């Protein structure tokens, strides 16, 4: 592993409630080099909030704290809100789950891609337009000139997600956080979109954090996998060693996944242990 690009140490996300503060992410640590890290966990395990706190986009009244949260040695927790807008998009970008909701419905997709470029580069409209069309063909959209003028509701899910990828990769960020990028897509389109994402990330030497609940998908596309449970990173393991995972939650998950040629009449159900959440 090369020099760490992103360092996260003892990350906590806290939400105040009527019955006192609730820690939703409880001391997650990892470091990210020029690699692809998968974060896997069930709903509510804190994987999305981990991604968002790196971008400092945890919605209020949530609070983020960490012993260290640094991008290329630069402390993100001490960065001003104004400076943060120059880091978001330009250095760390994020792809969200469902393009039906994550694209602005009243703006042409071309303009949204352009906007993402012009926020970080000093370019006039004409240049930005050329760049946007280039980006659309980079995500293998066949008729980029026409798609440029479409609105999000005129796109299929797969196309929408490719537009999203094009938009987020436009300012060439060093780190890309993909938060369930294919969960809202048809199974047949999922692989297509993942392949595009994978190609672009490799081509540009970006670091990728792939957040998902799909253990199989993550292990196929990532170098390392971090398994989260109840706000904690319970285990981090190389993707190809996944079957050697030790934590009982991860073992239970793997055991309960169906396999081709399975001769088990019934899949085992995950037996939870209250100790895991401590």
């Amino acid at each position: 592993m090369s020099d760490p690009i992103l360092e996260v140490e003892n990350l906590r996300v806290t939400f105040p409630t009527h019955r006192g503060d609730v820690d939703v992410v409880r001391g997650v640590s990892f470091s990210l080099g020029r690699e692809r890290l998968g974060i896997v966990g069930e709903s509510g395990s804190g994987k999305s909030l981990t991604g968002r706190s790196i971008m400092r986009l945890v919605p209020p009244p949530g609070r983020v704290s960490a012993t260290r949260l640094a991008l290329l040695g630069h402390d993100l927790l001490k960065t001003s809100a104004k400076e943060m807008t120059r880091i978001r998009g330009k250095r760390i970008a994020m792809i969200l789950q469902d393009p039906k909701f994550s694209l602005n419905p009243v703006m042409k997709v071309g303009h949204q891609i352009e906007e993402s470029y012009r926020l970080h580069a000093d370019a006039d409209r004409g240049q930005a337009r050329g760049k946007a069309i280039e980006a659309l063909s980079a995500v293998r959209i066949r008729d980029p000139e026409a798609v440029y003028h479409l609105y999000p509701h005129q796109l299929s899910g797969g196309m929408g997600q490719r537009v999203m990828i094009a938009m987020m990769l436009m300012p060439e960020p060093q780190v890309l956080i993909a938060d369930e990028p294919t969960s809202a897509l048809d199974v047949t389109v999922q692989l297509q979109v993942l392949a595009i994402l994978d190609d672009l990330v490799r081509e540009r030497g970006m670091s990728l954090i792939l957040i998902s609940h799909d253990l199989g998908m993550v292990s196929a596309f990532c170098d390392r996998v971090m398994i989260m449970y109840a706000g904690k990173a319970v285990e981090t393991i190389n993707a190809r060693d996944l079957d050697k995972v030790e934590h009982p939650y991860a073992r239970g998950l793997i055991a309960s996944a169906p396999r081709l040629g399975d001769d088990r009449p019934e899949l085992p159900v995950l037996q939870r242990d209250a100790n895991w959440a401590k």
Partner: protein
Amino acid sequence: MANDVTTAARAAAPGQIFGAEFAYELIRFLGTLALTLLGLTFVTFVIGRVVPIDPVLAVVGDRAMPETYERVRQELGIDLPIYQQFWLYLTKIAEGDFGTSAMTSQPVLHDLFQYFPATLELATAATLIGVLLGIPLGVVAATHQGRLIDHVTRIVGLIGYSIPVFWTGLVGLLVFYAWLGWVAGPGRLDIGYDGLVEPVTGLITIDSLLSVDWDVFKNAIAHLLLPASLLGYLTLAYVSRMTRSFMLTELNQEYILTARAKGMPERRVIWRHALGNIIVPLITVVALSYASLLEGAVLTETVFAWPGLGQYITRSLFNADMNAVLGGTLLIGTIFVCLNVLCDMLYRLLDPRVRP
């Protein structure tokens, strides 16, 4: 990937059939207008004829000779069956004859042309004030949810709703006209300025600009300011509450997170992306409140001696002046239908999802 081209083709199509589309829309508009007005006329007409008032008496007074009474009764067509009366009324309307007002002894159409511009001027000024202040206030309240400015906006809005306008009107006149002298008093102009400018549109502010008479313009504005602000305050209260609630919904949408993740400054996220998405529901809100102001604000008009539609129709009602009431009702109906169509067109312009 195969559907790239077909989607693109679909998007290109509307431009080519725009002409046919427009003709269809025009026919639909005229149809809606005709049907709405027919229904309105019928209902108002029937109510006007069924209520226990005597339209003849309204014209001749209660000391008229029986012969006079009978003659007027026949002139008005009251002796005919009601469906014939209705038909008679319709054919006359088609010729542009709305009858004569018993109260002013002028053709109703002439009266409406005189009273409506006063209402139009007041309602438009009030709506402009309410919208230009209400929308930013609502946006700021939403982005500062639960903080001081949000509570201040809420209280300001609540006061706007709950204090009756005849009270704020009188107090406003006392403070800003009698004590401070910042604004002019009741009426549309000081007597000295009356009739100085040629009425073209009937809106004194516009007419004085057309004839480049700054004195009249200033005086008209001074008279307009207080009643328009008070009515505008009501609009502001409503518009800012609605803007706040639309905004709160919108700010929780995923595309706002996308915009922030792109590195967009918060100001642009709010004023361009979020506001851009609430314009369409806001248009509905504004149009509704504008339409209700165009009906005339009886209380405000009374307090400020503003010769508007609300006063005219109310007085006609008390005087059993059915021609005037029917004429006024039809005018209001026309305004509602026109505003609705205007809204439809604006939706299409601003929201790509409802474009044909």
